[in-house]
């Protein structure tokens, strides 16, 4: 995990970790756990679907704010550390800024496009337009239709996990690509971890290619998505998601698990 040194040297304030796809694919667990080991505080974390690594960062007090659109343990239930932070301020208060998937995605698209906002037909009549300041009404200059504007999102750092890079640093990811391209291109800096570095990228149908000059840092991190998966390399570890429910439900059990599995291990 050579890339984490850069996070240490140049601390990000806003970490978008679309380590996954929209929802769920390539969790950057390895990089996220290094953030915990470094004892980072007061981060603003961003992700459409925060999951286990976000639950860990929140439970260890790394986050002050979370920008998200769906925060659960897919197929299992709650993220208990996220809930404990919101419901009981443990280990500290956590500000939420929540969107729908479409809205948060269009915030990345606007950021990646160099525009001040994205626009969609949504939010009207929902509670979200009342509680989320980054949503405002806007009127179409051609038809007068009222739509929703969402402000551009430009993370200080985006971290994603992909399958392959070549020796020149060009990255290829495939399968469910989610919002990973938009999250990288919206960010001021980016870290991409990959399963494998190959001599030559072989184009795959439907893949996303990020040329080396469009990313900031590259690191090799095999199985870096665990317990999520990287198509073609590893399957989703469903047992780990199930097991996390019991680990995370109780504060003491959670802290003991973190001490054993994260804090005590070198990056």
């Amino acid at each position, binding site marked *: 995990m050579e890339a984490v040194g850069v996070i240490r040297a140049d601390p990000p304030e806003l970490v978008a970790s679309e380590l*996954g*796809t*929209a*929802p*769920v*694919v390539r969790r950057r667990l390895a990089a996220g756990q290094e953030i915990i080991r470094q004892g980072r505080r007061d981060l603003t974390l961003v992700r*459409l*679907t925060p999951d286990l690594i976000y639950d860990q960062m929140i439970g260890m007090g790394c986050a002050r704010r979370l920008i*998200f*659109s*769906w*925060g*659960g343990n*897919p*197929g299992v239930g*709650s*993220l208990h550390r*996220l*809930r404990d932070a*919101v*419901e009981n301020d443990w280990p500290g208060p956590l500000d939420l800024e*929540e*969107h*729908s*998937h*479409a809205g948060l*995605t*269009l915030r*990345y*698209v606007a950021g990646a496009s160099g525009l001040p906002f994205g626009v*969609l*037909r*949504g*939010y*009207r*009549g*929902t*509670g*979200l337009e009342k*509680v989320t300041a980054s949503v405002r009404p806007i009127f179409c200059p051609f038809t007068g*239709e*009222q*739509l929703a504007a969402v402000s551009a999102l430009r993370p200080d750092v985006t971290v994603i996990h992909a399958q392959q890079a070549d020796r020149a640093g060009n990255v290829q990811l495939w*399968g*469910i*690509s*989610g*919002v990973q*391209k*938009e999250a990288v291109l919206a960010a001021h800096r980016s870290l991409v971890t990959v399963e494998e570095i190959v001599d030559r990228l072989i184009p795959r149908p*439907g893949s*996303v290619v990020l040329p080396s000059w469009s990313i900031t840092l590259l690191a090799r991190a095999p199985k870096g998505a665990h317990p*999520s*998966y990287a*198509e073609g390399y590893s*399957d*989703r570890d*469903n047992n780990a*998601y199930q097991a996390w429910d019991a680990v995370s439900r109780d504060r003491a059990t959670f802290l003991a698990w973190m001490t054993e599995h994260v804090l005590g291990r070198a990056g």
Partner: protein
Amino acid sequence: MSAGPTDTMIPPTPRELMVISAARALVDAQVCFVGIGAPSTAANLARASHAPQLVLVYESGCIGAKPTRLPLSIGDGELSKTSDTVVSVAEIFTYWLQSGRIDVGFLGAAQIDRFANLNTTVVGPYNRPTVRLPGAGGAPEIAAGCRSVIVTLPQNQRSFVRRLDFRTTVGFGDGPGDRRRLGYRGAGPQMVVTDLGVLRPDPESNELVMTDLHPDVTTEQVRAATGWDLRIAERMERTRPPSAEELGVLRRLEH
């Protein structure tokens, strides 16, 4: 022969009745935007039984997914590997959903009100919730953009509430004309399938009316399970009991 988990001699549970009734509502060759959980189970049951040409669309960007087992999350590799095409999340919500290409959106919820508005955000006050729920996900735009919507959730005093703790997703808003006023083009929720029966919106008032009861369920039971003064259809339909085939396919999917 011992009774295994897929033995269709075991009578259906209320949840199985809900899923089977919801699956029956899907018409073959429709294009269906599927939420994870009970909606996904029902949509896959429909595709595996009476609607083999059903086109399943998942918000992770999977279009025409044909999973052979139930996906645990919308990012499941089983979805991407079996899809006709996989597009980015930005694309699925814009070119495919917002543009009006999807026939039916299929959603679950924690709470619903009499105008079929949905809450998946919090129980209790927003700033200090008793239960923090996962949040909106794709639901608000699915309900806004699909031509029609089917909602499936268990029916009880906690879920069928007089007033939502938070309006995550608009069904009919505050009543007639609200969807049009808000600029939503689809027809909104046309069916709510529960573990006790089926509700449909009154075409004039938009208020949900109990129109079908599952086998052995009484009107007293559904009234008691609803947090508002529930309207009951004059002519109540009775849900056809699940066939051995429906139960068998569902139990194989879930095990």
